[in-house]
């Protein structure tokens, strides 16, 4: 038995809590969670049943935290978890789960399975069975400050380009600004127009805002791979920068898991509440719209729909805001049959997009989103997560679908009234 395996088992024991014990106690093996999981519905392979992905964790609970299990272990009736099994389960825990949490919404006994997969990854990561791609992303996040290796000069170059395009100046390190804006590497590299869009919107709304040169990266590979110490370090960088600048609110970007990391897990990771608020960009935009500070004109007339990023909608509670914003700038907004808190994942969340070996499976799972889009007959797909956006674009291209993917913030910015230039 290797030392890393022992560390993994210790991490399983570390995460064990009352919710997990109640969830495992309640499971009746009905298998309904499978019907909620796109990795099962699109492959038909029973091994992708969400609760099955937790089998090693369940056995540790059963054998060490229940009387009957302990008696069974004493007389040698139980099957201890092995290192080989953890290696086998790596695919189930990392490749075939995006932490989308759909299974957690339908379980008849109320098991929050995504909560448990997140916890199980702590043990899998400690045991050294996390996928190479995610280990690399996590290492880059720690050493370079970004999972994609995007450093400050790269951001500065993109900012200069956006400033040239919009004619606005993008504020950096402004002491005492109201809002500190975070970005994702994906946005910096692939969708820098998000930065320009924010500049335009905040100028019209008269918002005092800033970026931080010390902490602009919002994504957090630590919560995806399941390494709480690393996740805490990444959150701490943002907290130090925000509290150093004395901002009132930190804005999480168009990225799903970044919002979960900074809004919901962050205070627990660093062990204290923040001295600032955290809001998702869509929450801020909707507040500005309702206050009459975000004024738009004209409507996009293309038939379009909205893809809810799981961590922003189902696991983040930002559901109405994007719809209100979209309806203010689009005249033919069509809702997918299952949307909002019951949306279907793009297939690339929870670190799956950083995990190369999962690519083939991810494209199979994308058939679910493909079907949803085809059923509506739209040619534009709006979303609010740079990661979803890349995954959607790759999926659409793979299946030769002529559908454009657009970021909601940029769509809103395109319709701003520009009278007061």
């Amino acid at each position, binding site marked *: 038995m290797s030392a890393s395996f022992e560390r993994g088992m210790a991490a399983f024991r570390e995460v*064990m*809590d*009352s*919710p*997990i*014990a*109640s*969830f495992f*106690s*309640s*499971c*009746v*093996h*009905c*298998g*309904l969670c*499978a*019907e*909620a999981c796109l990795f*099962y*519905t699109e492959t038909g392979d*029973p*091994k992708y*049943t969400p*609760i*099955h992905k937790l089998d090693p964790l369940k056995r540790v609970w059963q054998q060490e*935290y*229940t*009387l*009957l299990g302990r008696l069974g272990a004493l007389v040698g009736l139980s099957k201890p978890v092995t290192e080989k099994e953890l290696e086998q389960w790596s695919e189930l825990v990392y490749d075939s789960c995006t932490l989308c949490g759909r299974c*957690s*919404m*339908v*379980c*008849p*006994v*109320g*098991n*929050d399975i995504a*909560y448990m997969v997140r916890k199980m990854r702590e043990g899998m990561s400690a045991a050294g069975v996390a996928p190479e791609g995610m280990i690399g992303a996590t290492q880059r996040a720690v050493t370079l400050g970004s999972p994609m290796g995007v450093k400050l000069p790269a951001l500065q170059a993109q900012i200069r380009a956006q400033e040239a395009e919009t004619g606005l100046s993008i504020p950096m390190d402004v002491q005492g600004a109201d809002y500190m804006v975070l970005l994702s590497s994906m946005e910096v590299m692939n969708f820098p127009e998000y930065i320009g869009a924010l500049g335009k919107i905040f100028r019209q709304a008269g918002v005092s805002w800033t970026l931080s040169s010390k902490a602009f990266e919002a994504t957090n590979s630590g919560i995806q791979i399941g390494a709480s110490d690393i996740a805490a370090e990444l959150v701490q960088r943002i907290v130090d920068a925000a509290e150093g600048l004395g901002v009132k609110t930190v804005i999480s970007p168009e990225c799903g898991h970044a919002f979960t990391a900074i*809004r*919901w*897990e*962050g*205070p*627990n990771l660093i*062990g*204290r*509440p923040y001295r600032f*608020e955290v809001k998702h960009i869509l929450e801020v935009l909707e507040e500005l719209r309702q206050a009459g500070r975000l004024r738009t004109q004209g409507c996009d007339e293309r038939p379009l729909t909205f893809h809810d990023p799981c961590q922003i*909608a*189902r*696991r*983040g*509670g*930002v*559901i109405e805001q994007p719809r209100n914003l979209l309806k203010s700038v689009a005249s033919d907004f069509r809702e997918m049959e*299952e949307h909002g*808190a*019951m949306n279907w994942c793009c297939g690339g969340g929870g670190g799956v997009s950083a995990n190369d070996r999962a690519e083939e499976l991810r494209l199979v799972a994308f058939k679910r989103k493909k079907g949803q889009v085809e059923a509506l007959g739209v040619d534009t797909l709006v979303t609010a997560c740079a990661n979803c956006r890349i995954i959607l674009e790759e999926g659409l291209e793979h299946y030769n679908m002529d559908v454009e993917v657009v970021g909601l913030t940029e769509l809103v910015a395109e319709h701003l009234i520009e009278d007061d230039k």
Partner: protein
Amino acid sequence: MSAMDLLLWSRGPGLAIAVSIFAFGVVLRLFEIYSLGRKADLAKPRVNTKACAGATVWRRMLPDMHILRRSPITYVAGYLFHFGLFVVVFLYAPHIKLIESTLGLSWPALPSALVDLVAVLTLISLVVVLVNRITDPVKRLLSGFEDYLTWAVTLLPVLTGYMAYHHLMFPYQTMLALHILSVELLLVIFPFTKLMHAITLFISRWYNGDIAARKGVQS
């Protein structure tokens, strides 16, 4: 041991032993769950979660309509046997009399002929869920000895009750004794198997609802 002796034992010492193990087991299992504890959530919640968590406890009684369409047998047979168990256990006149004699509580019974029909439906739906468990690839993968044991131990009290009522196979006293013993077996294994979900689902639904409600989602 005569049939009468068996009946007397099952009604006396047998019942006392079974109820004691049941009570001890349930308290132990609840202790095992709650003693693990739960870290306080330091993230500022969106809403007061208590009402939402309570709502989740009730909402999960109802199916998600899309999942219902994908897996109708699980839901229909599942509802039928749970509902059937409730009727035969709590709305059959002799059972109510037993409860009245021990706890002093009483309520109206359904006509025995109707309970009899419900018992047949319950048995049929239990057979359906078993066949479904064996033939459905997902359920078969998730199933082990415990799943078949709990199935059998759930079926036996209904079956023996039905047989006693209709005076089938054995003399009434023998069948009644077997019926009571089967219930005692159920009580004994209840806390240590997935049958415990009848109690812990209120805990897990509450946690689920609480976790989601903090984020502003009704789960």
